[in-house]
């Protein structure tokens, strides 16, 4: 469904992505792991055209989106939803306004139908109806993530991109968010790419794992294969050893 070919991206002369090749199969959750600052989020942003690569291709259903015009990108983005690291909830809107936003902007649904769908998503995310009137500044980290997930899910997208969905959460909330991701994926069957460094929790939800290191994918396979991977860098990362990637 999504194919990344020889993707290269540099910032201020520093090559962050150095020829990435990766396939994201339809209907599966592909997780890209790697240490903080290695370029995982940069990679993710190329998939929706938020960043343009220096060279290489990003194919979505065979079409190279790196050559898309602004209008084509807008059309493409209707198929995507992104869960940003900090949630990226709109400060000026309450929870209801945030979750309803994509429906109000991109559909002609009645307010009654929008209301029904928003409260259905809140319930799905184990959030009580009174949360709808709160503003993002009044929410805990876990609630923000779940509201952001509800907003991402409300339009029932074909593809969801998760940028560090559990960073900063305590272990019970991490499990809750992964459980919700897993559950929504089973119900909707969407394609997903997730970037994360939460090992080993992330293996629970992934169908395929790829490891990004020094701008390249150095290992790729099923979670069990990655856990047994012979590369010492991969093993060191999975075991959480100190300074294994010291540059």
């Amino acid at each position, binding site marked *: 469904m999504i194919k990344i070919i020889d993707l290269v991206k540099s910032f201020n002369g520093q090559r962050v992505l150095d020829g990435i090749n990766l396939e994201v199969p339809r209907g599966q959750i592909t997780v890209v792991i790697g240490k903080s600052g290695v370029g995982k989020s940069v990679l993710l*942003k190329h998939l*929706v055209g*938020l960043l343009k690569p220096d060279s290489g291709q990003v194919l979505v259903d065979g079409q190279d989106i790196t050559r898309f015009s602004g209008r084509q990108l*807008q*059309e493409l*983005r*209707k198929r*995507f*939803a*992104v869960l*940003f*690291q*900090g949630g*990226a*909830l*709109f*400060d000026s809107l309450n929870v209801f306004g945030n979750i309803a*936003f*994509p429906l109000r*902007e*991109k559909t002609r649904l009645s307010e009654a139908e929008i209301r029904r769908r928003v409260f259905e998503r809140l319930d799905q995310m184990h959030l009580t109806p009174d949360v709808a009137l709160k503003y993002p500044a009044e929410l805990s980290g876990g609630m923000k993530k779940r509201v952001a997930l509800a907003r991402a899910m409300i339009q029932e997208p074909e593809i969801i991109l998760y940028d560090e969905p559990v960073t900063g959460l305590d272990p019970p909330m991490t499990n809750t968010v992964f459980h919700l991701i897993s559950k929504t994926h089973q119900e909707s069957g969407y394609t997903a790419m997730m970037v994360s460094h939460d090992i080993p929790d992330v293996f629970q939800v992934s169908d395929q794992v790829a490891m990004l290191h020094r701008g390249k994918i150095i290992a790729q396979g099923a979670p069990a294969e990655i856990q047994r991977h012979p590369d010492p860098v991969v093993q060191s990362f999975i075991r959480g050893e100190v300074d294994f990637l010291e540059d």
Partner: protein
Amino acid sequence: MATFIHALGGRFLAVVQEAGAMMLFLLEGLALTFVPPYRPRRVLQELELIGVKSTLIILLTGAFTGMVLGLQGYYTLRKYGSESALGSAVALSLIREMGPVLTAIMVSARAGSAVTAEIGIMRITEQLDALDTMAVNPMQYVVMPKLIAGVIAVPLLTAIFDVVGILGGYLIGVVLLGVSSGAYFSGMVQSVVPLDINGGIVKSLVFGITIVLVACYKGYYTEHGAEGVSRATNQTVVLSAILILAWDYVLTSFFM
């Protein structure tokens, strides 16, 4: 020496490049005004932020500016026995010059900095990226309504400033210092011509666009977290004030 010239040239090119980028930013924002969805509700929200919430500060500064003009004008004109020209002096100073400039500087300090901080925070917390990924153009959703609001609000605030300033001058000149009320207003009616009023309106329109353009542009391209927002906010106030005064000179020479 070569290094110095190289650095100077580089700096100059950077300034020209940024001016060009700002111009393109403005054109894109204005062009989106004519592309659906038109977002009248967002424009009203921004009118409240930029216009309504600046009213009190404009009332205060307008009143005190008019009072100072009344006081200074009275004692200067008295030396020549022309106290009756006080109304003309206050009105012309306010309508041609002080009203548009001081209103613009006050709006820039209050609303311009707030706009930069708001958009800057949206940038660093990925809210602008979130709009993009929802196929909502952030230029149209965030920037365009602010540009329209700036164009509408600043001339109206300038008019309020002028009226309140004239009343402030009246309070000092007529009520406290004894200038004839009839002389104050009749002198004003005779000396203020449509060109003065038109000049003031044109200035306030240009200043309105300038303030909101600088504020939106600086916020939109904020980098480096909270420190970047702080720097962008600071740059907005300084750059707006410089541009307002520079534009003022250009437009004054055009309308003289």
